[in-house]
């Protein structure tokens, strides 16, 4: 813990080796975060780079009050949101109708891996992807999401519902594929 503090201090004073060490410590995790928010790997790589530049630029202001990982993660999420705002400022507001509830089979957890799920998230329309990530994976409330994305709480809620619905269907498709593949004899 003290080591990290020291490392942060070194980074703040512009030591490139320290910066590299810090990057190596957090890069994989943060790349995971960026991948969830981005539409593809290229965008995630860009966001990771921009995010770490922001980290190094602002690290001298880190007050050691909360978790450092949480702080970096917030920066990554903010950079991703910023990118989204830039790209989808004029994205039309989609309203939702009623969706038929879809049942998920119980063994679905065992069948689907992280990579496949990540791909599903990335395929979501950008707004849904943002809301789903913020709510489900980063634990923001609808109120916080509405502020972060400059949308109403209602829109946030409906976007989340829509995202869930799309994901459920896709998960089921995927599950069916997995199942049918598995039923073929080798």
């Amino acid at each position: 813990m003290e080591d990290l503090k020291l490392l942060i201090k070194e980074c703040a004073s512009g030591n490139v080796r320290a910066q590299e060490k810090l990057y190596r410590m957090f890069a994989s995790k943060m790349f995971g975060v960026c991948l969830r928010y981005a539409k593809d790997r290229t965008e995630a790589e860009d966001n990771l780079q921009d995010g770490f530049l922001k980290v190094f630029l602002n690290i001298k202001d880190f007050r050691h009050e909360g978790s450092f990982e949480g702080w970096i993660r917030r920066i990554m999420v903010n950079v991703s949101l910023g990118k989204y705002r830039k790209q989808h400022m004029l994205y039309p507001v989609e309203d939702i109708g009623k969706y038929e509830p879809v049942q998920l089979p119980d063994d679905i957890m065992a069948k689907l891996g992280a990579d496949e799920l990540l791909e599903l998230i990335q395929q979501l329309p950008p707004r849904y992807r943002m809301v789903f990530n913020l709510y489900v994976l980063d634990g923001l409330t609808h109120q916080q999401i509405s502020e972060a994305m400059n949308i109403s709480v209602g829109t946030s809620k409906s976007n989340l519902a829509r995202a869930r619905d799309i994901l459920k269907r896709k998960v089921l498709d995927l599950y069916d594929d997995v199942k049918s593949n598995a039923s073929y004899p080798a």
Partner: protein
Amino acid sequence: MMKEENNIDRLFRENLKDFSEDPPAFVWDGIKEKVADGRRSKRIAWYSWSAVAALLALAFVAGWYFNESSDKVVPQVAEKEAVKSMNEAAADNMDDMDQPMSEEEETGIENQNAEFMAEADGLQSIKKKTDSGVKSLEVSESDDIVSREKLTPPDRIKPVEAILLAENQPEIAYKGIAAQKSSGLSQSEREILKRNVASYAEVDKNEKGWRMGVNVSPGYSSYSAKYGNAYAANMTQDASEGNANMSGGIAIRYRTASRWSVESGIYYAQNGQQTGSSPHLFGRRTDADLYAAPEQMYFNTAVKLDRSIISMNSTAGIIEIKNLPAGAEIAANLENAAYSDNSLITRGEISQVFNLVEIPLYLRYLIVESKLDVEFIGGVNAGLVVGNNAFIDNQYGVQNIGNTSDISTMNISGTVGLGFSYALNKQFSLALEPRLNYYMNSISRNPEVEFRPYRVGVYTGLYYSF
């Protein structure tokens, strides 16, 4: 419904909450480069700011100094006047022994006397002389004050000079004394005055004041440089030379009452480098020159083709070749893997030339003061890149092929030099000044290239004092 939602949320949360994946290596390279970029621009900003600060500090010191020295003028006159007033006062005392003297005048003279007594030995000798003058006056002659002065030996010209000075500044002269001062001067005294005026004029060339001049200099410019590995691997051979050129400009300086002067002005200068034909030294080149006759050296360097621009890593930065020179070929690097797919093959020399307008701020210190003055010069220049060209000189002549990318417009250089100045007369002087001008920042913004040109030149100039 709620349960299902939780279901799907849980599915993603458990799988992706702590999902991590190693990013590709180039992401870190990009970050490193951009951090270095930021630092570099900060450094340049730092240079600019320190130049501004130095300028302000100099302006402040200069202002303070000139104020200070103009203050000094008054006591200087008063001091010299004290010599005169001693004369006069003594004469007054002698002549007007019987006349009633106003109290004010008396105390004035007493003060002068007190001050005078406190002065150093040199002045005391003057006092003696004054006394003797007074004595002779007592024994011999009339009440003409000037004729008393006549007795002063011509080699002791100091007090007379003082009179001259006081005469030129009658408004500062003492009330009671000024009236008597208006009396005429004898012939011999006029002679002495003339000599004094002449010697004054001679001293005057180094008195404080303005001096303006024009300078030209043949110069030789070269550079010191460092490169990143990736850049260097694909670069023109770095066994290159500087180039010879002319520079010159207008200088204006202010000489303070002491040995210091401040100089500014505007200069035009050229910096650059020349890269000759290079033998086949490095791996990532086409083999074309191996087949050339041994005495034919080919310029042979890896280049990158991007749309219509051919870029080539060269000494002062990447040359963007916009016009392919005559007699040059682009050949594919068949066996090369990485950076550059092509090579530029041509005979001749490539040069990168930068034209600069430089605004100097120099301090000059007079080391030797004589007919031939010697000064030390030191200071900074703001160098603005106004021209940026790349040329190739081959069997088809000199051709402009494009320019160097990432060159910063504003740069800071330092200058040191020696100045020899020969006074032709009171107004005009000839100057000969060897100077070294060295760029403190790399003029290339490319993080892989650190290119700092320097230039040596002997400036010859004609100066006018006013």
